[in-house]
């Protein structure tokens, strides 16, 4: 039996922002994974990938947290995160963290090899095609820096969006520019971050799209938060929500219905 028809067990790494702020992204991920014949498990011992500590220079805490993540996801064939940033932390940075600890390095490398960002996993590993999804909207897609540079997830979301009925993808200018999120950066250096997100929003808005999407909730919360502060009117959705046919949920930061 090919891997496409076989039920395989995948562990979902929910990520802290999705867990707390936008569970619908997690459920969209589960739905998409199930559509490709996966059985989704959500290990209970997971919290966060450790990036806030890592980027703040707290290497000791980062290693402890990384160690916890490694044991929480031990034994699963695939570990999937609906975020390029968190998946990138595991794939690229966990092995670096344990470079001087041969036993842990082996485990970190093993987890890194099994960990994927959601959209690239769907497209590259599961040959996923969006069927029967309608989304009559003009969409522009923001490349998060981690998806763009660390994970090289650039074409997969675009190819999957192309198959959605009614969806028109319009590319923005200066696609490689950061949105200014950067974790604690956007709080510590909010004035610089403001300038960065304003430039990003100007480009996204200039596309004339109705919807902004991306594969990382950090960027999306930053962009949506600034959009609303500026009084702009665009809907902000995670790519998983669109692909799963859940694009009718209220957008990030939008009024509830």
């Amino acid at each position, binding site marked *: 039996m090919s891997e496409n028809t076989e039920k395989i067990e995948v562990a979902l790494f*929910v990520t802290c922002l*999705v*867990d*707390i*702020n*936008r*569970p*619908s992204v*997690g*459920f969209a991920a589960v739905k998409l994974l199930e559509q490709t014949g996966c059985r989704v498990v*959500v290990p*209970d*011992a*997971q*919290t*966060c990938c450790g990036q806030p*500590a890592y*980027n*703040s*220079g*707290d*290497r000791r*805490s980062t290693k*402890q*947290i990384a160690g*916890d993540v490694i044991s*929480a996801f031990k034994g699963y064939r695939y570990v999937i995160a609906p975020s390029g940033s968190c998946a990138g932390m595991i794939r690229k940075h966990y092995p670096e963290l344990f470079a001087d600890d041969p036993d842990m390095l082996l485990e970190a490398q093993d987890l890194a090899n099994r960990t994927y960002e959601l959209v690239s996993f769907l497209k590259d590993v599961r040959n996923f095609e969006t069927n029967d999804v309608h989304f009559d909207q003009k969409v522009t897609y923001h490349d998060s*820096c981690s998806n763009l*540079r*660390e994970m090289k997830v650039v074409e997969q979301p675009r190819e999957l969006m192309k198959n959605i009925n009614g969806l028109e993808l319009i590319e923005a200018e200066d696609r490689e*520019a*950061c949105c200014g*999120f*950067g*974790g604690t*950066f*956007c*709080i*510590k*250096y*909010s*004035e*610089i*971050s*403001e*300038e*960065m*997100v304003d430039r990003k929003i100007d480009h996204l808005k200039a596309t004339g799209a109705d919807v902004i999407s991306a594969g990382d909730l950090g960027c999306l*919360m*930053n962009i*949506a*938060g*600034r959009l*609303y*502060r500026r009084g702009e009117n665009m809907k*902000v959705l995670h790519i998983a929500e669109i692909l799963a046919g859940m694009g009718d949920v209220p957008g*990030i*930061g939008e*009024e*509830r219905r």
Partner: protein
Amino acid sequence: MQVTSRQFKENSHKALQDEELRAALNRVKQGFTTKRREAADALPEFEQLRDQARDIKNHVLENLDYYLEYFESRVKDQGGHVHWCSTHKDAKDAILKICKDAGAKTVTKGKSMITEELALNKFLEAQGIEPIETDLGEYIIQLADEPPSHIIGPAVHKTREQVTELFHEHHQKYGYTEREEDAEKLVGEARAVLRHKYVTADVGITGANFLVAETGSTVIVTNEGNGDLTQSLPKTHIVVASLEKVIPTLEDVSTVMRVLARSATGQEMSVYTTFSTGPRRKDDIDGPENFHVILLDGGRSEMIGTELQELLRCIRCGACMNHCPVYHAVGGHSYGWVYPGPIGAALNPQMVGLEEALHLPNASSFCGRCEEVCPVRIPLPKILRHWREKAFEQQIAPKPDRWGIELWGFFAKRPGLYRQVTKIAAKMLSLMAGKEGRLKKLPFNNGWTRVRDLPAPQGETFMQQWQKKQKREG
């Protein structure tokens, strides 16, 4: 120069309000990035060349003592002198002695970042020697009495209007009484003023892009030809370079040059590439009578064998700052010392002290674009993170930041407790936001809500909902 990196936030605040600077920085962003992309795309082997350039520089750094001594012996063979200077003070003293021996009243200068490190102009002025910058950008900021804001375009922050005013103020004494507004004519005016200075200067000082070990040559690349006149007309030529500029062979120079201009300005090559090998020979028709190389360490040898060694591969192309969103936002002066942008954020803590430069490695979103374009593949984000780790270890990171991270870390390491806390936080924030779906203010964390609304949590956490679903489905 005076270090103002501690005031990075205040500096950036000012920069962000400066409309003329915004316009100038926008030109950097548009111009340099597009041109580099086009140049890189036009050369199929560009990525391989980057690997080769990296490997050449790594080889040099692994054998630095050998190549430096080799270089010195070749310079001597040509009749030149090499001055080993371990500190900035040593370098300034050596330069001063050469100038005094030459009886110098004026020196012309080509573009050199090392002389910016030395704050050489102020030093020479204090000794009664007049330094004259001959690179147009350097000349402009010398008139404005400002440090450079970019390593290859020192005056990129200046608008044409500002240059008109500067020239009007400083060139009247040469008979230019009208305000010149045409860019090309402004260049002509500067050229005419400078031409006279070249001829009267006693000493010419240049930097070096490469020090070639096998030939004892020093190499500069320029687009204006000012370097040639600076070094060949005066009787004495002083080359000021830091020690990592040494490179084994001419062949290696040609390899690294293929990525240098392409990464910097998108040119295949700069307009002028000038090789200087010792003083003038008997049958040479021109050239300096004395040839000196000031070889500055200035803290660099301490970086060998540490996490910072990779920074010494830098060939000063400026691609990292040309592509940096933080540089685009705040410009070069905000960084508060000689080197701006990602390379400055990575290097300056070593040069001026981590406490002084603490903001620089922190003011980055880790977008990674600098590393992506660095021609010698310096892992800049990794080095910025290294400084953050040093600051955390040495407890010089701001206390509230530390406490925040430690508190968060405490919960992140305890999944059961984390689950409870996130459940409450999600619920509370969701309730506070109500129907509106977002929060305009928070009782804490002004950094987020100062510029953005906070999209509120949907209600229950994913884990809560998932567990309920599991129970329902048995």
